[in-house]
């Protein structure tokens, strides 16, 4: 049976893993390669490394960090941040990434999705969407808006519509981060995740707001997520994937228990 995936996310700035709350207030959480291996050993199904300041500062992804992290990592490894062209993506793949996550650059030039997929396969392209509910709108979830540049800039695009377009252009997965719930540890935005998951055929990774095992169970159930991503709950030893998965299995969620 296909299991629900738990993805450990490393937000990297200047070669160090950092963690913010609602995209700001950043604190140091350690070395990327070391943390990636600790998470994989602890039962994480995948590792995502996001160079969170790459787009903002207009520079490339930290290839050496990717290389060092990928060297002995034998679970799927995604890298995002600062990937603006098929060439940028190729450099990241050559450094050992299995998938790239693109966000601002896909909004700026949607053809990029197909260009990377054409060379490396659709499975290698994750379109990341930073979303904020449309407060005060008649349908705040349906009218949720896409943000770019690390949540700094509103695009005017609707989340569900952009997810559908990304799929049509050849995205392999959607990584949906709720800016409303990010870093709060009060649970994922299940309504928004469910809305996006129902609109596309490709897997949807929920992100933002993980705090307890129950939050994961909710987003896999009611939220219809195929995978869920978390960072802060792992970094400071609150829980590891093994513990989390044992709880999820007790709650009836199908997960891979590491050996």
């Amino acid at each position: 049976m296909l299991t629900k995936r738990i993805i450990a996310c490393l937000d990297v700035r200047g070669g160090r893993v950092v963690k913010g709350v609602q995209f700001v207030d950043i604190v140091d959480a350690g070395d990327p390669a070391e943390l990636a291996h600790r998470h994989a050993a602890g039962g994480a199904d995948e590792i995502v490394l996001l160079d969170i300041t790459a787009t903002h500062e207009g520079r490339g992804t930290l290839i050496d960090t990717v290389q060092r992290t990928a060297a002995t990592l034998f679970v799927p490894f995604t890298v995002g941040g600062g990937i603006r062209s098929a060439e940028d993506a190729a450099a990241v793949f050559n450094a050992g990434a299995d998938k790239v996550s693109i966000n601002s650059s896909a909004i700026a030039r949607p053809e990029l999705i197909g260009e990377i997929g054409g060379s490396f396969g659709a499975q290698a392209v994750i379109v990341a969407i930073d979303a904020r509910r449309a407060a005060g709108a008649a349908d705040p979830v349906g009218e949720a808006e896409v943000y770019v540049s690390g949540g700094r800039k509103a695009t005017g695009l609707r989340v569900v519509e952009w997810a559908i377009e990304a799929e049509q252009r050849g995205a392999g997965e959607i990584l949906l981060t709720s800016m409303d719930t990010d870093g709060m540890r009060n649970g994922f935005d299940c309504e928004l995740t469910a809305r996006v998951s129902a609109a596309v055929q490709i897997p949807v990774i929920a992100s933002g707001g993980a705090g307890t095992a129950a939050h994961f169970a909710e987003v896999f159930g009611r939220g219809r997520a195929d995978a869920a991503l978390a960072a802060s709950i792992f970094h400071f030893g609150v829980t590891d994937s093994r513990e989390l998965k044992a709880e999820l299995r007790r709650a009836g969620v199908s997960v891979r228990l590491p050996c």
Partner: protein
Amino acid sequence: MIAVIDYKAGNLTSVVKALKYLGAGTLVTQDPEVVRRATKVVLPGVGHFQATQLLTELGLTEAVRESVAKGTWFLGICVGLQWLFEGSTEAPGVAGLGHFEGMCERFPAVYEGAELKSPHVGWNSLERVRPDSRLLRGVAEGGFVYYTHSWRAPVVQATASVTEYGGAFTGAVERENVMGVQFHPEKSSAVGLQILKNFVEL
């Protein structure tokens, strides 16, 4: 020495990295002569079945056919497994090696009345693991491996293990020296490394 065939179908880095980690000597090649001389051949590949057309254009299909006929160990990964079959509906004009019978087909959009997401992405379990499989030696029934694909190979006599997603499909296939896996052993943690180690140690 393991010849790893490069036919521009996705990224070879991870496969080569895993083989090296296990102590195997590898040579990434497009040269049919290198394939003919190799003691073992790995055909990786993610992406579109159409890419396998290049194998024929480069003379690699013939080289592989000769190699496996004389007993060279062969492992196809993902599209590399699919290519061992007769072909795929993904690229109907492109013939596979035809070593195993049957065509690869897309996952159905609906299975048993429920919508089935595609691609099939994530960790799924190996079921009906054939006890005599040399490739899957030491792999427990229900062991988890990482998949990412939209087309799948049918279950045939040579199937060494199946996985369930929209019905059963071939997760691993093995007949004598010719083997294939639909999942990515290089991304399947301890279980995947065990499988690659089995191949390296043949």
